């Protein structure tokens, strides 16, 4: 009875497998989803150990996803009703979840421990405030700045970083020769927005109901950038690459100026042999505009134990771990007390890193591209698609802006 035996084998096998670990989170288990920090494994195990000193009977599951996978993953987990309790979200992605009432309002928790509330930087906390509710607390903070390759500036006879959009493009043209290009920017989220901000462009009308970016100055700026890109003064990777490609390009020493946020520096220094205090310059973008790209901790609405989740967040962001994180992964944490210590540490250990990190807490009043729009993700997608087409010379700037305007308004109406 070969077949019968097969059937039995099959049945047994399936039965065996069906009994496999299921992730419908048990009461005494919380799960934590971080954003692309697998290298930090050992320390996160430290968080968990500390957390379990307070709650010995609670299991902690740690998950990590890289940027592009993070959103889709969280989405599938939302559908399955197994969304991780504690989530580490980058940039504006949290807005959509907050607006759809998918996140826990942390206000009450903060009200309950005021010392924790005062622990976080009061000028940074509001950036996770949506319609009067506090949905996130800072995990680590970053915003864009301008790195420049002093050697290349010197070769082009330039003595200082640009002070205006016109200068920026002009400098880029002077440096962009042959294999070399003068300027490059990161483009994910809204990191390229300072380029528009310094031309006085607003994305939306003050009431946030209509698109407001389709202006002559915007068209002019876009056109200028497109031309500069076509001539190789602005590196094409600015509009095609995501993270690794632009960093590698700058690390290769063939790009004059690079608008990116602090974490890019440490990636670049890892692979760029040329980088030292004498060769790498650090400045604010013209006009001091910068787009934040900070990470915050939030709690999923579906969490069965928000109280435990909150305790975990407190551990992960406390002075000990904040300092460890800042000094190991070279970031500031949005907790002033910790950040001062981190800065002191780097001033001593690594002056160049210090000069970079310092910029991250300067002119926090010049933050742009961080509007609290429920449909941020969709708007970003629609807007950038058109802008990218123009920047890569597939569409005239005016037409691209018009179409972007149409789409964005459509999204806002839906």
């Amino acid at each position, binding site marked *: 009875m070969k077949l019968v035996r097969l059937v039995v084998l099959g049945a047994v096998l399936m039965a065996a497998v069906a009994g496999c670990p299921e992730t419908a989170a048990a009461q005494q288990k919380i799960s934590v989803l971080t954003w692309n920090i697998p290298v930090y494994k050992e320390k996160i195990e430290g968080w968990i150990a500390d957390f379990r000193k307070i709650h010995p009977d609670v299991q902690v599951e740690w998950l990590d996803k890289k940027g*592009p996978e993070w*959103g*889709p993953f969280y*989405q*599938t987990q*939302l*559908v399955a*009703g197994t969304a991780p309790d504690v989530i580490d979200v980058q940039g504006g992605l949290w807005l*959509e*979840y907050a607006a*759809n*009432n*998918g996140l826990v309002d942390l206000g009450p928790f903060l009200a309950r421990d005021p010392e924790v509330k005062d622990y976080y930087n009061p000028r940074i906390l509001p950036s996770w405030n949506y319609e009067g509710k506090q949905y996130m607390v800072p995990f680590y903070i970053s915003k864009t700045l301008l790195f420049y390759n002093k050697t290349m500036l010197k070769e082009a006879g330039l003595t200082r970083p640009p002070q205006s959009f016109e200068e920026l493009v002009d400098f880029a043209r002077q440096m962009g020769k042959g294999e070399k290009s003068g300027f490059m920017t990161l483009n994910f989220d809204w990191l390229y927005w300072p380029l528009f901000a310094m031309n006085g462009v607003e994305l939306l009308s003050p009431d946030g109901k209509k698109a407001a970016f389709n202006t002559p100055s915007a068209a002019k700026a876009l056109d200028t950038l497109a031309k500069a890109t076509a001539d190789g003064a602005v590196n*094409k990777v600015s509009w*095609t690459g995501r993270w690794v490609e632009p960093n590698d390009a700058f690390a290769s020493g063939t790009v004059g100026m690079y608008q990116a946020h602090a974490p890019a520096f440490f990636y670049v220094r890892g692979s760029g042999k040329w980088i030292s205090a004498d060769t790498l310059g650090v400045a604010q973008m013209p006009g001091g505009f910068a787009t934040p790209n900070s990470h915050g901790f939030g709690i999923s*609405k579906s969490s069965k134990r928000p109280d435990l989740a909150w305790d975990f967040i407190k551990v992960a962001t406390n002075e000990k771990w904040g300092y460890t994180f800042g000094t190991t992964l070279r970031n500031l944490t949005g907790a002033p007390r910790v950040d001062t210590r981190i800065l002191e540490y780097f001033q001593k250990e690594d002056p160049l890193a210090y000069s970079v990190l310092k910029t991250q807490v300067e002119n926090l009043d010049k933050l742009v591209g961080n509007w609290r729009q429920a449909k941020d*993700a*969709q708007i970003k*997608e629609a807007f950038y*698609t058109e802008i*990218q*087409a123009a920047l*890569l010379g*597939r569409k005239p700037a005016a037409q691209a802006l018009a*179409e972007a305007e149409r*789409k964005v308004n*459509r999204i806002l109406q*839906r």
Partner: protein
Amino acid sequence: MNVARRWRRQGVIWLLLAPSLAIFFLYRIVPLGWNAVLSVQKWSPLRPAEFAGLYHYEEMLLHDDVFWTSLGNTLVYMASAPIGIALALALALLVNAGLRGRTVYRAIIFVSYPLMTVAVGIIWRWLYDEKLGLINYVLIRLGLVERGIAFLDSFTWAMPAVIVAAIWQIVGFFMIIVLAGLQSIPPNLYEAAAIDGADRGQRFARITVPLLRPSLFLCLVLGIINSFTSFDLIYVMTRGGPNYATELLITYIYRAAFVLSQLDYAAALTVVLFVLLLAVTWAANRATGGEAGAVEAAE
């Protein structure tokens, strides 16, 4: 007694069918219906479902450029199937001839089919690389270009590049199917035709092609289904970029559902995809007169 036995046999037969039918019911029929329902609702995991009529379809057909782009791309991708099939036919004819080492050739040409598509995508992604890619290296050495082309970042090249990779993987499979067809043609037909003084061309046109119809039709349908389902290659090679230049319906469905978190809209897209697939296959069926019985799924 006899009646009872017949009933028992009927029961046995249905028992034999049960598991398969259950699976298809669970993962083909029900999802189809569910999709239809989802597509006329406003629904998200965070909000209760409400009836929305043709809201999503209106959005899709009237306002969503990306939908039309991905639809166009899907059709282009589909249109590449005949190329692969022609190639496969030619190869099959060659390796079918009483040639020394033909089994080796067959094996080599077929070997790309069982390969994991994700890995294939990674390999080609890197063959196409602007700086390190073998293809660019060869082009430069041949003096055809002086600077490497960033194939997968280029609006003009991304789609052809992906298609080449896709054909590279599927052609062997097509070849085997055509080969099967060729071998089922009785040789004496050719001999008879030869005696009647028909030259090769005539023999090919009058005997080979007509008798190969089922196999070719099968390839065609597989190609069509492929163009509606090949997610892996795109996901690994381009993620639908640059600027949606390689976005197919299937990848757009994934994006809509899990990146833009609009599962209901994605469901509507799925319905359209399915209707389209049926229409195209039906048309192909009519055109080639192939019998639908030969249609095989290409999971």
